[in-house]
């Protein structure tokens, strides 16, 4: 920064204070929220931060006028936060900002209308971003990162200020989504439950009335939770909703949604087109889809093996692993089709040793007992209609629709 004179610094600080008080008194949200959005590094805020570094006695300015001093609780820590933010000490910046936010919530509670909701949303966002950065700073200096956790509990407080009634409730979903982000990042997903319950039960407000961006985010995260629970129909519904309403231009978001939606769709028997995977760069699913199409168990296993880390981290590994049964089903179906071509009258009897042989070709070493068990499971889970005759070691297929399609229903478990 170029050198700034004392007068200039004074001028800028005063301007900031004026903007703030003007925005509050005129209920100008757009102006107000810009004064809090420091993580996007707006030039004005940065220059104020510089001015604060030069003009040490900013707090005196706040106290000088009633116009400012009534917001001293908000402004004093905000200045401190700005200063620290500019100097790169993010932990300090976060702590000061949380004080500001706390004071702002007090004010917000007192305001009848929800005019400042957007400003509050900015604050909530800043809280999360600052906490994440502060944690990075903490962990790089060997300390335990705890600010994000603190931000989580602070946001719960904000949520409490919004969840009640009236127009302020509009902001509740935004806070919820920020909480989701925090919880998913921290791995404390179980904490989502209380927030979800509050959103889904207290239906003073129709869900559809929430802002679309919040709805999409909310559906994305709740869909992911359903994936963890292996509740595929619900996950499908939520993720599909998110995909449908997601801004088509934000491809990154679409990709994130597809990352979970594809495994969900696969497990209810719906395979994606190849172009979709290419378009959104989800090639790790390519081989999985191929394997399901061909009944190629080996390919499926190797695809899982190759991307094991990724799948484990995103949490879809177990979902994909369960696709094996579908691969077996496909394999048996292929055998059945071939037999049918050879001898339609005996096609519905698939000998166990044939399946064992087919698996051998796939270099999968399973003995008769194990294959018999797999076949029993296939029948048990209704992936194959028919029965198994133990004496003759033959899978007797139903003559009608021996391989029922899932058609959007999950595999019986």
């Amino acid at each position, binding site marked *: 920064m170029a050198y700034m004179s004392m007068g200039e610094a004074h001028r800028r600080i005063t301007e900031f204070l004026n903007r703030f008080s003007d925005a509050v008194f005129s209920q100008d949200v757009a102006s107000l929220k810009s004064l809090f959005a420091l993580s996007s590094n707006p030039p004005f805020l940065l220059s104020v931060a510089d001015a604060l570094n030069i003009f040490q006695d900013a707090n005196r300015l706040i106290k000088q006028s009633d116009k400012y001093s009534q917001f001293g609780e908000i402004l004093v820590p905000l200045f401190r936060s700005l200063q620290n933010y500019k100097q790169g000490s993010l932990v300090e910046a976060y702590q000061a900002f949380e004080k500001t936010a706390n004071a702002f919530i007090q004010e917000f509670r007192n305001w009848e209308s929800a005019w400042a909701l957007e400003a509050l949303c900015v604050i909530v966002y800043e809280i999360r971003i600052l906490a994440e950065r502060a944690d990075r700073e903490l962990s790089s200096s060997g300390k335990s990162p705890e600010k994000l956790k603190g931000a989580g509990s602070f946001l719960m407080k904000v949520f409490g200020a919004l969840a009640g009634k009236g127009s302020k409730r509009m902001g509740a979903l935004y806070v919820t989504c920020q909480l989701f982000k925090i919880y998913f990042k921290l791995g404390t997903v179980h904490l989502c439950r209380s927030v979800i319950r509050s959103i889904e039960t207290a239906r003073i407000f129709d869900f559809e009335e929430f802002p679309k961006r919040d709805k999409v985010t909310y559906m994305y995260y709740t869909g992911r939770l359903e994936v*963890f629970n292996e509740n595929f129909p619900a996950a499908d519904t939520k993720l599909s909703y998110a995909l449908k309403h997601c801004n088509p231009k934000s491809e990154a978001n679409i990709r994130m949604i597809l990352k979970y939606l594809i495994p969900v769709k696969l497990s209810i028997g719906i395979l994606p087109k190849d172009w979709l995977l290419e378009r959104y760069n989800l090639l790790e699913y390519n081989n999985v889809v191929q394997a399901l199409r061909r009944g190629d168990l080996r390919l499926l296993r190797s695809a899982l093996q190759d991307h094991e880390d990724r799948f484990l981290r995103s949490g879809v590994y*177990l979902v994909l692993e369960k696709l094996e049964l579908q691969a077996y089903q496909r394999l048996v179906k292929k055998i059945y089709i071939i037999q049918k071509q050879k001898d339609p009258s005996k096609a519905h009897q698939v000998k166990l040793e044939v399946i064992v042989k087919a698996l051998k070709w796939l270099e999968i070493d399973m003995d008769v007992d194990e294959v018999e*068990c797999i076949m*029993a499971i296939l029948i048990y889970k209704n992936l194959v209609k028919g029965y198994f005759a133990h004496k003759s070691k033959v899978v007797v297929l139903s003559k009608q629709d021996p391989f029922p399609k899932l058609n959007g229903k999950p595999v019986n478990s």
Partner: protein
Amino acid sequence: MANQGSNTETLAPPVVPRSLENQHLDGSQEQPYSYTPSTTGSQAVSWTAHSSTENGVYSNPPYQYDQHTQPPPRSFQDGQNTSSVAGNSSNLGTANVPQDYNAYTSYPSSSNPYGYGSAGYSGYYNSYQQQPNHTYSQPVGAYQNTGAPYQPLSSFQNTGSYAASASYSSTYYNAGDYQTPGDYQNSNYGNQTTLWNNGTYSSYPSNPYANYTVDSTSAYSSGTSGTGATSMEYQQHYKQWADYYRQTEVSCAPGTENLSVTSSSTCPIPPVTSGYTTPNSEPQPAYAPFWRPDSSSSTIPSMQPGAITGVVHDGYWKHGGQSSQIHHTNPIQPNYQNPLDLPCSYDRFQDQQKTLPSHGPNLQYPPAHQVTPPPLQSTPSLDMRRVSKMQIPTNPRIASNLTFGLPKTNRDSSTTSVSPKPAYISVSLPKPTEKVSSNDAASSIIKPGMFPKSLRGYVEKALARCKDDKQMAACQAVMKEMITKATADGTLYTQNWDMEPLFPMPDSDMVNKDSSQCSTHDSSLPKYKRSPSRRARSRWEPLPDEKPVDKPVLTSDDTMKSSGWVQNEDRKVVGEKEESKEDGSRNTKFSSLLQRTSSKTPQRTFKKQRLADALVASENGDASSDSDKEANLTAYYPSAMAFVDSPEERKRRENRSKRFELRQGHRAENNHFRQNAGAGNLYSRRASAMVLSKNIEDGSDRAVEDIDWDALRVKGTCQEIEKRYLRLTSAPDPATVRPEEVLEKALLMVQNSQKNYLYKCDQLKSIRQDLTVQHIRNQLTVKVYETHARLAIEVGDLPEYNQCQSQLITLYTEGIEGSHMEFAAYNLLCVILHSNNNRDLLLSMSRLSDEAKKDEAVKHALAVRAAVTSGNYVAFFRLYKAAPNLNTCLMDLYVEKMRYKAVNCMCRSYRPTVPVSYVSQVLGFSTTNRSSNEKDADALEECAEWLKSHGAHLIADNNGDMLLDTKASSSTLYIPEQEDAVAHGDANLAVNDFLARAPL
């Protein structure tokens, strides 16, 4: 009770006479009275201590005691006790505490001022406090509370206290009975409780020695089996320890033994307690008033507290009756013949001795002590308890001895602690003097008493290092030189003895010279030693069989030792008496006896000696490191301080560091703390840290949460290999914490033990606890947790396993080597099979390193996971049979579920039938693959049974082979209720198991 009441009321006057008489009696045969009372009191005290030790909380108990004064102490001893104390005593206990404190404060400051009263009182207080803590408090508790409430609460420790109370009441009664000692003795044998008192009394009157023996015997008899065992142990301990005690503080040792005896006696007493309680009830009131006055005036207030405590104790005792017995039995077994135990017993003895000293006065003045003693008692009791803790294993044995010894010791201690005071002095003077002279050079050195506390502490430390009498003697010689030199240089008081490095251990040969002197003491010591060892055995060793044998030995030893003990005690008493100025009149005798006693310092010295003895004992037992010793010393200091809270100490303290000033400022608290520390003589640094922190807190806030627990890191001194697990409710007592070497042995012992899981689990938990409190995190820690985890897996104790596993994970991440992979596999299996949480599973899987994924066990676990998630029962049961390590055991817990799922699946997919032989083979009933042999037939049978019990329909085909009718079965399958299911879900917690495990 009437006696008690009178005593209490008269406390000052009557007490004095009694105490005097008692003391005298002790000294001579007349003393029997005093002895008996004192013994009873001491016993009671010792009981409490013992009981506490037995409880395992021992170390804690002292601390707690200290903190809470008497009531707390009790509570400390048992977690329950504390609560009970609170409940019981809320009134009493609380009142007691303050009173105690007051008494203490008054003592230190006014102990002298009281002069007569103070002397008597102080003596009383001291003795009372000690005894009162145990006995009185117990009686009081019984009285006020009538024992019932209290009993439940503090049953464990109280048992000891109860016994004490019982003994008190009995003692009081005995007072009348005293004359009929013979009867009592007889009765003792016949009647455990009454017998005790009687026996002790009788023995006392006749001969101190006899008393001792009688006491021990009585205790034993009362204890019946337990006592018998204890007696045996005692004897052994005595023998072993005799030397030590002699050298150091024989009297203390006796006291400890006595304490142990008392404990043992108390155990039997429980039944008696009711009777006691009633008597107590009467006395209590009287006591209470007295004590209260004491608190204000010193004696009276303290009396009440004591009474209160007594009540608690009673409750404890009553409850404890059972527990104590158990404990005793346990201790006896372990104590037997354990060399390690001996050291422990030493420590304990020393501790006891120390405590005893403080208690000593109490013993004499049991009633009075109880009242006033609260403060003192609390300290003494604490000490005792600590000692007891130390001795816990040996306690039973010691208990008997201790009870006797305690009385004596108490007297001594009381004199010393109280400082004093004449009554004690007078009583014990004759013997004490002799003892003193003959006794420890160190003690003699110290006794002169004029030495600064720090020097005492130093001496104690030095003595604590000694592993045997010879060393003790040598150390004493060296120290004498040092002190003489210091005196000549004029640095005696200026030198910071606390900081002074210990001189190198002199050759034991050197010591031998002194040993002759000590030999007399040694005789007593051996008894003590024996008693500790007995205790140790009783606690830890599950060898009830030894009891009979031990008993005979013990009896002989006891008799032998008893004489020694008496002497020792007397000596101590004398010293104490001398110390206790208040005892003046009585002290006169003592004073004459005790050259040292003239001043308060003598008392201190005695205390120090006792402490030192305790230290020595501990050191002997543990051969603890210097640091331990130092720690002990520091602990001793506080304890000593606590004991000495008497005026003398105060003065000294004032002159000393700011610390002390702070303590003084918060005397009551400080006293408590100190008491705690003292109780924990072995507490070592921790105790001192506690004291410091407390002091600091006192100064500022007292917030327990602010204590820097790291600073309280304990260095264990316990040598017991076996130790029962007891959840800590206060700062651990180094005396009951085993150092790493011992823990290693303990682990080995557990690993090689043939006992059941409950026993091993208990032992391992106590090992884990000791590791934790000492902040030991190394390969041993990993081994312990791994061992425990494996055992838990073997028996399917998942909660315990999970505890170990979570600890192991952090230990492994700290880079400590162990069977990392093995446990990674267990962890996986656990998550897969038992938590059913996908997120956890994903987390565990994603954390596996590539290296881990190549490990056999981990691969197996992952394969199991795959089999489970896909429902592949064939793969599951193949893996089940090929499982490495203990994976099988974890899978075992899932087998039932897997089989049920599998049968469900088969019934749905197979038509028309499945041979049972196939089911049996696939579901892991048969061990071999389709091979038809006898085993297979059994497996078939088992499989068929299993299928039937789950609602499957079986039919026979033409060949007579069993077939599963899948269609018929598919709708009728169900999971039968577990036949061996227990309402609370854990068959391991069956009542019978609990009962069966108690004797462990």
